[in-house]
């Protein structure tokens, strides 16, 4: 499979990108802060518990509600950074290579054009799978060893956060076959921002029981389903008691998207990738 040659090249090239390195650096800072923050949280909690027990008061809420909120915060950040990383990494993958002319030496080789697109997709997907895996592992091991807390369904959450990144990857790559690097960056970041805002609007709609707001959120999540998949992940990774305690909120949801939504998102990822392949197939270089 020639696509794997391109995948390997893309993976190596991705690691060299300054913006990607920037995100990795940011992630390391985040990880350090997260470990430290979790540690402070546990200390505070213990101090409070001790005080409360000394006063003979009963525990207001179980520990796991707060620990879960800490995990949720961590995963939300991972999800956000992964999205940014995806867009930074792939924004110019086709466009800037056409602009620079590096594709002129590749395309006339005995490789089909769609294999080039698929290879690039696989290369970035591998990079993202590793990145998200490491980050999720940092969050869960921190919760485990520092907070003595194990969030449920962490593998599903990992899969869904990866799905978010892969959808954005397909979207960014499709844009890259259609627009210049800069235009694509603007467009994809706008869509990504819109998805996040749409998710917030939906949560506000749920809290206020406002149908119009909820509907806006749903429409946005059909256009760009990234945020809805994150909310499903967040729903799964919290114990029910935490979900109920938090209610509608910026980081999660009380109404999880259905499995249909998951299939829709997977289809979205595949179809956009296929469109990118089809578009590149006919493009003059």
């Amino acid at each position, binding site marked *: 499979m020639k696509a794997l040659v391109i995948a390997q090249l893309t993976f190596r090239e991705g690691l060299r990108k300054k913006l990607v390195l920037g995100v990795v650096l940011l992630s390391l800072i985040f990880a350090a802060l997260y470990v430290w923050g979790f540690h402070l949280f546990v200390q505070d909690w213990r101090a409070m518990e001790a005080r409360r027990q000394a006063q003979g008061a009963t525990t207001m809420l179980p520990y796991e509600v707060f620990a879960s909120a800490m995990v949720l915060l961590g995963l939300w950040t991972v999800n956000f950074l992964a999205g940014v990383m995806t867009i930074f990494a792939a924004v110019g993958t086709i466009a800037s290579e056409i602009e620079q002319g590096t594709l002129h030496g590749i395309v006339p080789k005995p490789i089909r054009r769609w294999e080039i697109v698929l290879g690039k997709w696989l290369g970035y997907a591998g990079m993202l799978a590793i990145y998200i895996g490491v980050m999720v592992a940092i969050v869960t091991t921190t919760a485990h060893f520092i907070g003595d807390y194990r969030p449920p369904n962490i593998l599903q959450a990992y899969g869904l956060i990866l799905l978010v990144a892969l959808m954005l990857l397909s979207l960014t790559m499709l844009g890259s076959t259609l627009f210049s690097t800069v235009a694509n960056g603007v467009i994809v970041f706008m869509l990504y921002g819109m998805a996040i805002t749409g998710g917030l609007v939906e949560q506000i709609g749920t809290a206020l029981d406002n149908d119009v707001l909820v509907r806006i959120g749903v429409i946005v999540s059909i256009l760009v389903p990234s945020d809805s998949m994150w909310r499903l992940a967040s729903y799964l990774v919290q114990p029910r008691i935490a979900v109920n305690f938090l209610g509608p909120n910026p980081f999660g949801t009380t109404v999880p998207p259905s499995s249909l939504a998951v299939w829709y998102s997977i289809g979205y990822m595949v179809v956009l990738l296929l469109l990118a392949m089809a578009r590149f197939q*006919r493009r003059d270089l």
Partner: protein
Amino acid sequence: MTSGTTPHRSGWAIETHGLRKVFGDRVAVADLSLTVGYGEVFGFLGPNGAGKTTAVKMLVGLIRPTAGSGLVLGRPLGDHRARRQIGYLPELFRFHDWLTGEELLDLHGQLYGLSRAERRRRIPEVLELVGLTEAARRRVRTYSKGMQQRIGIAQALLGSPRLVILDEPTSALDPLGRRDVRDLIRRLRDDGVTVFLNSHLLSEVEAICDRIAIVNRGRVIALGPMSSLLAGELVVEFRLGALPDGTLAALERVIQIDAVQHGERPVLVARAADEAAVAQAVDLLVRAGVPVYGVIPERRSLEDLFVQLVNEERSEPR
């Protein structure tokens, strides 16, 4: 050759019929029909903007023709099966310059489908061929422009192709590098490889090409074997003794006299239709008792032909 997938379906290495490419309202290639035989070194010439690069890009499948069709190694344009046996050096080559020369060739070898063993054998060979053995482990980014062009040529030869398409392979090379490329192309021809060469260096083309096409404004204005295109008319300089009256008039009937330098030893510059006419003229002079000190044929250069053809077109109304 490792893959024998391309049969001789057509008798030509390259064959195009009415290829046309329009960008917006700009016609880059108007109507290109040409054939390149197997084993030929073919020169593709034309002024800037004539459509040479556009034509080549259609041959290698980088852009789609607006109209027309073509076969390369017996396969339709853009068919990826022919590409195993095509080596191509793009005009504006930019490779993944964060790789070292060796890594870059390894990548391209993989794209050609060469096995690890083949790559291990072939990469040092082509590096040697283009004189980059020393620089193999340096990043391509640190190469000079000429070195980058050399690695581009190495990449084009990596798969031991049957057809090599070079779009201005020597534009950045020093005189030695140019000579190397010339020798390289000769060696390829000796191995039976077909070479399609875009170049502005007419003396170079003249030295190595068997056949040429000259294009202007996206159309072929001359096509044929180098020798017959350059043959055309002969320009001959005659160095003579004293000319009796009437000799010039008699000569005019056989050759066309362009210039006469009178004196003790007159010099004539004349144009003859062919070599027989020159012999006739000499015969006539000798019979008239004119001493003939020298008959110096001036070969018409490719440059003369190019300038003449392109200028003729320019003076024509569009």
